[in-house]
């Protein structure tokens, strides 16, 4: 008998056995030979991304394949609306980076960041830089910041970002080995995206739509439990 683990690959296909037609079904086939003759496609073991950065939320960390944000890649956070904990999701990461002396750049913020709240979340404001830009300029500025490699994380709020623009950001994040976050409206969930990680966040739950290096867990994470640590 042939037993193969139904390992699931990162693209989600199951492993399949394609036997040579010439062989009778009853023939005993050595597994090694099958593998050597490349008639069997084996699902690869989960390859964890080279480096990940803890999100600061244990429940989210355990759900993500590498145990955190994918390092030097774009993570997309699709939010339904403002005021549902979208900043509390990111604050632990930004607080950890800024207190380690890394620079964090916010590009095209939708509102004014209130310094008292950011300080209360532990973000070192001396390491925080804000770039005022809209539209294409915002995308350009984000890409420049990512590509430079002089920032620990870049957070952007692109208004109209198409597939190409996001791919540029993803490549720039890889080039500069920088964490990139893009906040986008929830409607964009139906469109494909080159981001390494896609999350949707609404007032009740957080869902992982896509994560590179593993299958997206089907079970959502309750938002209030996740962001309760923020204290608000």
């Amino acid at each position, binding site marked *: 008998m042939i037993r193969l683990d139904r390992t699931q690959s990162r693209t989600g296909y199951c492993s399949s056995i394609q036997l040579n037609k010439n062989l009778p079904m009853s023939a005993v086939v050595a597994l090694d030979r099958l593998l050597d003759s490349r008639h069997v496609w084996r699902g690869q073991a989960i390859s964890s991304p080279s480096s990940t950065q803890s999100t600061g939320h244990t429940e989210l960390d355990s759900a993500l394949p590498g145990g955190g944000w994918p390092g030097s890649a774009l993570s997309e956070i699709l939010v339904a609306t*403002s005021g549902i904990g979208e900043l509390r999701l990111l604050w632990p990461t930004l607080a950890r980076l800024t207190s380690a002396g890394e620079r964090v750049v916010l590009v095209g913020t939708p509102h004014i*960041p209130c310094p008292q709240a950011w300080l209360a979340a532990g973000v070192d404001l001396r390491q925080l830089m804000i770039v*005022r830009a809209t539209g294409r300029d915002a995308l350009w500025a984000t890409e420049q*910041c990512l590509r430079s*490699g002089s920032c620990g994380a870049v957070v952007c709020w692109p208004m109209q970002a198409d597939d190409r623009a996001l791919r540029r950001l993803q490549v720039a994040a890889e080039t500069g080995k920088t964490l990139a976050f893009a906040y986008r409206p929830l409607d964009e969930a139906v469109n494909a995206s080159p981001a390494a990680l896609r999350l949707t966040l609404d007032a009740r739950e957080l869902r992982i739509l896509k994560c590179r290096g593993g299958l997206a867990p089907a079970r959502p994470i309750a938002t209030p439990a996740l962001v309760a640590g923020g204290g*608000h």
Partner: protein
Amino acid sequence: MLWACILFPQLAMDGVLRHRADADSPLALLAGPAQRRVLQAVNPAARAIGLRPGQSLIAAQALSQDFATADYNPVEIEHWQQLLAACAYGFSSQVSLHYPRCLLMEVHSCLSLFGPWPRFEARLREELSALGFRHRITVAPNPAAARILANVHNGLVITDADALRQALDRLPVQHLGFSREAATAFSRMGLRNLARILAQPRDSLSRRFPAEVLVQLDRLLGIRPLALDFHRPPDVFEQRIELNFDVKSHQALLFPLRRLTADLAAYLAGRDSGVQRFVLHLEHRAMADSQVQVGLLRAERDASMLFELTRDRLEQLQLPAPVLAVRLAARDLPRFAPERRQLFDERPQQSLPWEQLRERLRARLGDEAVHGLSACADHRPERAWSTQSSIPQPISPLRPGWLLAQPQPLREASLHILAGPERIESGWWDGDDVRRDYYVIQTRSGQRGWAFRELGSQGPLMLHGWFA
């Protein structure tokens, strides 16, 4: 002492060519009055089609029509000499423009800094070629001899008096720097090189020739010192490039701009200073200049960075009229403090440091586009933040992560008040009086907001922030 002489055999031509993108097309420089224009200098391409210096323009045009012309401008030559002296000043503190079209610099004292002479010479040649000037370099124990050797040699290095005497002895009398009459007289007397001249008794030479001849002989042998006035760099940088035609697009301005910023960088490196603020003037016909102000947050002198920043600002400018000339003026030249870097950089791929990135963002997005964030000691939310960086403030009570720039009325019916009211009453002394009761509210869709009602008003709650 060891003196290097850098001779620029085609200074005027090179000075014109470096402003032209097509350096390989035939070009002739014209001098003389308008009635009789004469070719003063030609480039190799022009020489190939038969043009020679000294020809009249009419004769040249009879030979060929397809060559470009430019004016031979002595003011320009003086300008290039100053630029080259400023460049050489980066290597040696004793640089002189005593002889025309030629730089004298003392090199013995800088060998310990720039390494042995072959390496130093390679670096000099590299910089001069990058600036676009052809050159010949010789080294001799005294400046007059170095100048004379440069007439016939390139790359010759002589360090002691005996070798110098041997090298000079063979030189023909026309190249020894005497006046034309003296040189002719020597050759008619059969004294065709320096060895023959020095073989003559000195008193007979002094009787037959003016005093300058003996002075020149003594200088060549290093017996009499040559009094040099040394170059001192100017305090401001100002350079102008006149364009050959009316330029209406930004693209055509980039080439002269690159030259200007490269020259500025060379000048700054020579002065060991940086530039923090400079102005690019675009001159128009019968109109005030368009100006491109470039302001940097810290002193810089990297040529490519200066060019890129200026280009970004130039591209935002609408040209009101064709541009005739470009001028770059830099007056604010503070000390340049090189950036400190970690010996073992944690991000080896870091291609662009933050300071340069910030300048690039500011150049395109505007001076105010990149800023920090800090808390201010004020209870009014509008005044509790600033873009200046300052010392961290003590943590104040509950505040939302996002603050709306303008409070908006909340029209939603089913609001749930989670906390409040928090009275904020302040500012009666500066005319921006605020008396509000703030509440933490939750909408039906689960958003948490921070809203207020003016004291005494019955209107809707005004949303002022989101607990994001």
